[in-house]
């Protein structure tokens, strides 16, 4: 069930990534895609009636598979770093071109010739 939700979110994220031209919304969609892949990984470790993977002495409960959860932690951190960096890039571009529309940024960039180009910040 959760795996299906994850796959639907994944497709939705890609759809938004393709059809919207606003850079911030594109990045949000990218975040959705990343989150969907993480949800998928977590849902794999699930078993019916299972609890969090903490083994108490003298108890034999059904536990979820802890490995995907451990993997997901690193993936979340990585995705956070990448999304933060992408937003910084967008901020730099907005300061220069005053727009978050990806088409307009590309047009403005094509209009500037190489000589005029000066570093941002």
């Amino acid at each position: 069930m959760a795996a299906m939700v994850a796959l639907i979110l994944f497709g939705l994220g890609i759809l938004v990534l393709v059809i919207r031209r606003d850079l911030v919304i594109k990045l949000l969609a990218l975040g959705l895609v990343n989150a969907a892949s993480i949800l998928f990984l977590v849902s794999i470790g699930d078993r019916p009636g299972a609890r969090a993977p903490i083994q108490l002495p003298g108890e034999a409960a059904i536990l979820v598979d802890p490995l995907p959860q451990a993997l997901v932690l690193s993936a979340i951190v990585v995705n956070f770093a990448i999304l933060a960096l992408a937003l910084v890039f967008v901020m730099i571009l907005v300061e220069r071109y005053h727009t978050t529309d990806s088409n307009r940024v590309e047009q403005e960039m094509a209009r500037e010739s190489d000589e005029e180009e000066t570093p941002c910040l």
Partner: protein
Amino acid sequence: MPLILLPLLRFAFAFLTITFARARKLLTIISHLIDAILLSQLVLSLVRGAPELITVGGAPAGIGISLIGDQIGLTFAVLAWILSVAVSAYTWQDRLRPYFFLLLNLLIGACYALSFTVDLFNAYLLFELSTLVSFLLVGYQRQPRQIWASLHYLVLSSLGMSMFLLGIGVVYAHCGSLDLAELKTLISASAGEPWMLLAGSLLVVGIAVKAGIFIFSLWLPSAHARAMPAVSALLSGLVIKMGVVGLFRLAAVFPIDLPLIVLGAITGILGIIYALKSYDIKRLLAFHTLSQIGYILIGFGAHTDVARLGALSYEVAHGLFKALLFLTIGEAAARAGGSDLKTLIENKRDIPRGTRIALIIAVLGIIGLPPLAGFDAKAILEDGLPTTVLRLIMLLISIGTVMSFAKLTPVLLSRSTCRANRSRILSYAWLGAGIILFWPLSLLLVSPAINLHALSVPHIVEALAVIAGGGLLYALTRKKQFRLPDGIFHLEQSPLVILVGFFLVYVLIVLGG
């Protein structure tokens, strides 16, 4: 032990160079020497027939993260070392902020670790690390075009890595392990099952976005053309190859020979067509990276021992001459005031003599003049190809390479009025020596019998005929105008193209498996 020390020491040096910024030059020399010792130790144990194999933390195999110093991994690690030395020499006297060297060391460390890893999730993290560092390196000078190229790179590679993660999920759900050695037995037992086909294509697409394959790496032309020369050299010579090593590792587990061959042919031919029409020389080199990856993929997908050795040697050869091309063209463009062909030809006298000689060697290397690097590796590869169709595709790519580099002839043939600085010359000499001495050096990788066969008369005649034919074709067709669709290199269309590519790979895996 050296398997763990190589990447970890690089990370340590990364933080040392930023803490003790003044001792940067000393630290750089020490780190390269240590790497050389560790690498030679690994090569020795491989030659003795007992490649280093280690599972981190002493956990049982299949649970712990395994690293292996086999032939594939070591070839890539040695290439990483050679290029890192060249880039250090190139930037020796440049006034760059300390954090540039921090990123450089992190990148090399990640590349070492990636060449040795045989664990899918470890590979995922290292891919993310190497690309995260690459984004920062591409945007280092903070020019808006660099930032834009970097953002494009980021969006596509993040999308690719999400698909890779989905693939990891599918594999783990069915096999319960992420160690490639374990997966090999588990997956060969379930050949042709739908989940395996899906997982294989997700993993392949995830890596292909980083590996410089035409329909997936659409970020590559602008990122490699906009970055600083030293950065482009590393990205093109090394970071792309990390994707290729990932594909090589996957090919041992999943039945992806057919996708590799088809993608290789597509990227080889399309890359050349776009290279023919680009007059910005750095962009031309970037398109050539896309097309040369084609040789490597075709060689590896052909699945014969000789062709695989050829693919490995071509990967080293390509690293050498593409890095040299980017470094020399970068300096030439800085002196001439622009990297488009017209500016370069107008100001060709401003290009220093040492740079020009190095550029000539690199161009002769890539077009395959015997007995330089490109020729030798291509000849080995060709000897191993099983069918004539593949040979014809390779021939086409070779002729296209000669045609697109023929544009540079006026830049190569002229006099110089100035000299390059010494550290740059040293860097060029280091890579140039590798290109010229490639044939004797490749004896380390390839057995003498195969290597001698590569230098036989038919191969030499063929290489010379290709160069002559390519030059002639360029002279005949240089006035022809044609337009190529440019939209796929924009952020709007490229994610869609990747999705189409995913279905293509899926179909190919179904057909091939």
